[in-house]
């Protein structure tokens, strides 16, 4: 389009010099801008709009009116760079997502690991593995940490300085416990029929692995839960 010939009023896309017809009233121009912006896949600039509208139109002015009209509505006329587009009002964004809540049971590995941490905290990964008799996958601990039921506690002052794991306040909230000490002890488990009634192994009271540096004579649901930060 190098040659700007006129005399063809509706087509004079850049220079509306003396259009043959008076431009449509501004309300009509607003309707045009509204329809154009609604149907356009991309934001449109004033220039884009004016090439699409009849000669003599003033899309910039129509935009002002239209923008005012959409103030406080569920959608707003937004300026994006030098172009315009309709967008959902920002306070309506909560409608634009659907959240599906999926109820799932914890895997056996996860619940056992969680139980060990709750009863034995602070407990190292090696200790968890010793009690469960199988390796604990990184994923299981990660999951419990992501759920915010377990967090990393202080490191043990033993060779390798292994991290320990403890349960969190979120855990206590979820299980309706005031502290981890409120976890039912072995005798209560037995009374509840959850343990067979044969003489208990003294396992609960026995240190899992000798911890020469630590005098953690383990005494059931630990006393030293929730070490201070």
């Amino acid at each position, binding site marked *: 389009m190098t040659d700007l010939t006129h005399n063809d009023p509706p087509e004079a896309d850049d220079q509306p010099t003396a259009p043959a017809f008076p431009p449509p009233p501004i309300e009509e121009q607003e309707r045009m801008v509204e*329809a154009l912006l*609604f*149907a*356009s*896949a*991309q934001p449109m600039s004033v220039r884009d709009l004016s090439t699409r509208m009849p000669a003599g139109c003033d899309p910039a002015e129509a935009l002002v009116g239209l923008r005012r009209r959409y103030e406080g509505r569920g959608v707003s006329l937004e300026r994006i760079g030098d172009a315009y*587009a*309709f*967008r*959902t009002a920002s306070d309506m964004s909560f409608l*634009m*997502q*659907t*959240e*599906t*809540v*999926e*109820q*799932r*049971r*914890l895997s*056996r590995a996860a*619940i*056992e690991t*969680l*139980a*060990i941490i*709750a*009863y034995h905290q602070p407990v190292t990964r090696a200790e968890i593995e*010793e*009690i*469960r*008799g199988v390796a604990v996958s990184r994923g299981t601990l990660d999951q419990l940490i992501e*759920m915010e039921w377990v967090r990393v506690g202080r490191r043990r002052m033993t060779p390798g300085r292994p991290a320990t794991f403890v349960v969190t306040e979120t855990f206590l909230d*979820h*299980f*309706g*416990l005031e502290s981890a000490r409120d*976890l*039912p002890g*072995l005798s209560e*488990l037995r009374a*509840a029929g*959850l*343990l*067979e009634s*044969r003489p*208990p*192994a*003294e*396992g*609960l009271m*026995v*240190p*899992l692995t*000798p911890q020469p540096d630590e005098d953690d004579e383990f005494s059931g649901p630990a006393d030293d839960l929730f070490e201070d930060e």
Partner: protein
Amino acid sequence: MAKSPGNISYLKAVPDEPAGDEFDANAILQRRADEALIIDVDGYEGPLDLLLTMARTQKVDLMKISVLHLAEQYLEFVEQARALRIELAADYLVMAAWLAFLKSRLLLPPDPEAEGPSAEDMAAHLAFQLERLQAMRQAAARLMGRDRLGINRFQRGAPESIARKRRTQWQAGLIDLMRAYARLKTKDEFRPYAFDRQDVYTMEQALDRLRHLIGFAGEWTQLVDFLPDGWEGQGKRRRSATAATFAASLELARQGRLEIRQAESFAPISFRMKPTTERK
């Protein structure tokens, strides 16, 4: 095909076009149309479509068309086609037979004995069918002329997608926790390794040791002498090693490789290798 179909005056190329006024031009158009029609009967959507086209040349309300005249037109068309050795599809011929029958019924005085619908009923139904087809064509045209989506009306050009978030809510109650722990503790009872490995001497260990040592024990040797180094003292370790060694000796005795002797209750237990001569 240069053959002219002759004077089939009722056929027109475009069904919806009104007849032209100029005589010459019309005649030429007419002839071309006739040729086109005869050559390509497939251009018509079946005999009913052809009949409708013919009926419209009568230029009257479809409800008032002369079915008799229409039947004659159609039969003439079929004859012409035959004369030109054009093969008509079976349905056109079936329609011709039906119309010939209708024509004869319409021409003859009504037979009061005749069963079934009267010739007038048949003609009326044909007229109805033609009118209905015509009406559906007009309805189709009106439908296609509406403000259509993507042509006259538009949807949002940049729809905003709905984000789908999936949140997993893990279910676990205190009872699950207790059960899990109880399960672990129950398991512990069958798995003495799980705690204090250092003070437990297992039967497997004792068996290994006994199998090795028994070969040297041709004479009665006391159990305590088989205890491994570091386990002969007192307390848990000695008890564990003694129990394991005794259990291992029972196993070897069962296999017939070893004999066990005890003089009286609580007296020391002695082993010796079972003499090979007595083996079967």
